[in-house]
């Protein structure tokens, strides 16, 4: 299905839909809050003071702009396209997640909320949320699946050091989707003082839009930086997609540049033909979960199935509704990379560039390394290095059949 539109950046209709997708599928208790949030966000968006404060914090606290780095050795090894990394891994807290958290905590403060909750998978969003809560002196509760707590221990401890309460979620598959269920249950119970900082471009409207807007700084900087370095726009963009916030942040400012090829990389786990993957666009179908209609991994009865990825941050059975729409209108290509391919790309990036990428970002790099050799040398490709991989070293050691004390 492919439709040529004049613009892909109009966003949602007045009820929060991207075509068939998006919307507000939440319990009545939450509806008034979500409408209040939409109103507060629209006011903040038009307030120069809000942007001034946010921009100041992004510059002096987060460390923006993040560099656009030419990966020379990787480019030489691939022998094709010029590969650039957008270095979101160099942000404070080590991933793109902080861009969104900073925006949302300023909103929470404007709305007079005093307690912050969030869900987290890999722990990057939890750490970023705990960080901004420490910065603004707000109470912070993070919901995290027990399975993820076990595989992301360093991030769990970081959150605790930052003063957050980390609540282990033992329902369902004990991963990101269950953490989100539990955060929604908390929110519905504590509506009066609590702000829910959703970590990705999903959930009920206006979250997909506001998270995207806060992440668009990635793509806007990339536009400026690539023009400074190369005198023109890139030919392709590659980013990993779980919920899809780092990808949407990079992609959105380029959606109307029709010569820019845009590729989202899903997690294929053990393979999209197995039952163990997290590729909702490739292997799922439209459904309703967590406040929005989008592509979901589910069985014939509409029960949500468990996702699998070696990367906790991509281990989610859904995807942001704007990605679902961009797939259906054909503007963005969605492909997938297996656990093994991601682990290999993790090691290669580390050895070739001295950069330890997050396992999430390693999916994007793996696809870039497949694609680059097939492209001419004057092709400019930007890969979103969405996070750093320090949190993943235990997982990698296991995948390599060794442990942290072992030799390589």
């Amino acid at each position: 299905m492919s439709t040529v539109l004049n613009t892909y950046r109009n966003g949602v209709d007045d009820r929060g839909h991207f075509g068939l997708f998006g919307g507000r599928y939440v319990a009545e208790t939450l509806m008034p809050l979500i409408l209040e949030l939409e109103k507060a966000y629209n006011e903040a968006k038009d307030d120069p003071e809000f942007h001034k404060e946010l921009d100041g914090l992004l510059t002096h606290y987060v460390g923006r702009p993040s560099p656009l780095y030419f990966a020379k050795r990787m480019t030489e090894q691939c022998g094709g396209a010029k590969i650039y990394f957008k270095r979101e891994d160099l942000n404070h807290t080590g991933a793109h997640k902080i861009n969104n958290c900073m925006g949302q905590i300023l909103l929470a403060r404007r709305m007079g909320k005093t307690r912050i909750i969030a869900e987290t998978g890999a722990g990057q969003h939890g750490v970023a949320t705990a960080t901004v809560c420490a910065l603004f002196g707000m109470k912070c509760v993070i919901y995290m699946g027990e399975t993820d707590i076990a595989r992301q221990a360093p991030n769990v401890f970081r959150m605790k050091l930052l003063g957050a309460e980390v609540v282990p979620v033992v329902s369902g598959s004990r991963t990101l989707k269950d953490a989100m269920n539990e955060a929604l249950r908390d929110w519905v119970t504590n509506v009066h003082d609590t702000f829910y900082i959703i970590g990705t471009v999903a959930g009920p409207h206006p979250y997909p839009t506001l998270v995207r807007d806060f992440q668009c700084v990635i793509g806007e900087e990339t536009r400026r930086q690539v023009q400074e370095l190369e005198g023109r726009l890139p030919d392709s963009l590659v980013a990993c997609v779980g919920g899809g916030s780092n990808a949407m942040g990079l992609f959105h400012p380029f959606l109307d540049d029709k010569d820019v090829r845009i590729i989202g990389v899903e997690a294929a786990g053990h393979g999209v033909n197995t039952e163990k993957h997290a590729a909702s666009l490739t292997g799922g179908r439209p459904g309703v979960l967590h406040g929005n209609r989008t592509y979901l991994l589910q069985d014939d009865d509409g029960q949500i199935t468990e996702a699998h990825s070696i990367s906790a941050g991509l281990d989610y059975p859904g995807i942001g509704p704007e990605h679902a729409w961009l797939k259906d209108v054909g503007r963005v290509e969605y492909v997938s990379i297996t656990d093994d391919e991601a682990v290999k790309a993790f090691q290669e990036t580390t050895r070739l560039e001295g950069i330890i990428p997050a396992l999430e970002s390693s999916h994007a790099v793996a696809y870039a390394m497949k694609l680059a050799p097939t492209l001419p040398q004057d092709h400019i490709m930007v890969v979103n290095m969405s996070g750093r991989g320090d949190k993943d070293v235990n997982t990698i050691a296991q995948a390599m059949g060794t442990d942290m004390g072992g030799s390589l």
Partner: protein
Amino acid sequence: MTAAVSTSTTDTTAAQRDRLTERFAKLKAENRGGLVIYTMAGDPDRDSALKLMKGLPEAGADVIELGMPFSDPMADGPAIQAAALRSLAGGMTLTGTLDTLAAFREGDDDTPVVLMGYYNPIYQYGVERFAAKAREAGADGLIIVDLPPEEAPELNEHLDAHGIHLIFLTTPTTKAERLPMVLREAGGFLYYVSITGITGSASAVEDEVAAAIADLRSSTDLPIAVGFGIKTPEQAAGMARIADAAVVGSAVVNKVAENLGDPPAAVDAALALVKQLSESVRAARA
């Protein structure tokens, strides 16, 4: 948008009967509050759940809410979450839930049954097909927790066509300016969620609920049921005094959970609780 309604039972076919409206009219004539009992289809297993359901009218339930299990019940507390997972683990499906209802209808054509669950299984089943099959099985109403009135028309048009009421929840956070939109889509009865929270959590203060119900009555003629957090016969009676009905769910489901090794005992324990609740509710306005 109310479903096809007939107030008289004598001149209508079974397919057109509006059991919910009939039942609330009867309660009003008897000057008593009703008891709405929630039970999860397929919990602890299909046959036992059907036995439980069949026993509910005699135990004193005036309306039955039949839970349709969902893998991710984000508006439910631990009791109903666990019940849904038990039901799914036993192989229950949406088709299976409708079969349970149809089997119940073979022996009971009067007790209104409201199906309650989440939107995705219905969306996958197909909204039009669901409306037809649910009515065929004997459903009178539907509560979809994660389908607010803004998103409801795509389902409600089909429910309307088949005479099923779409029942909406209002909450302490539903503001006056929002209520007309909720009421525009609402049928059957209005479900007032007496607390901000999930099912099975802390209980509401009776005086606050009474004030909220008085407010709602000035906007609608629909009967009003109160639910969430009602666990004991005393609480149920308190709510049945001020509302048209009290809803009890988690406390009944917990009786099943307490007797997992012995399904007949689970059914007996659940029905014994319903009997206590009913006696208390029936005495509430005496």
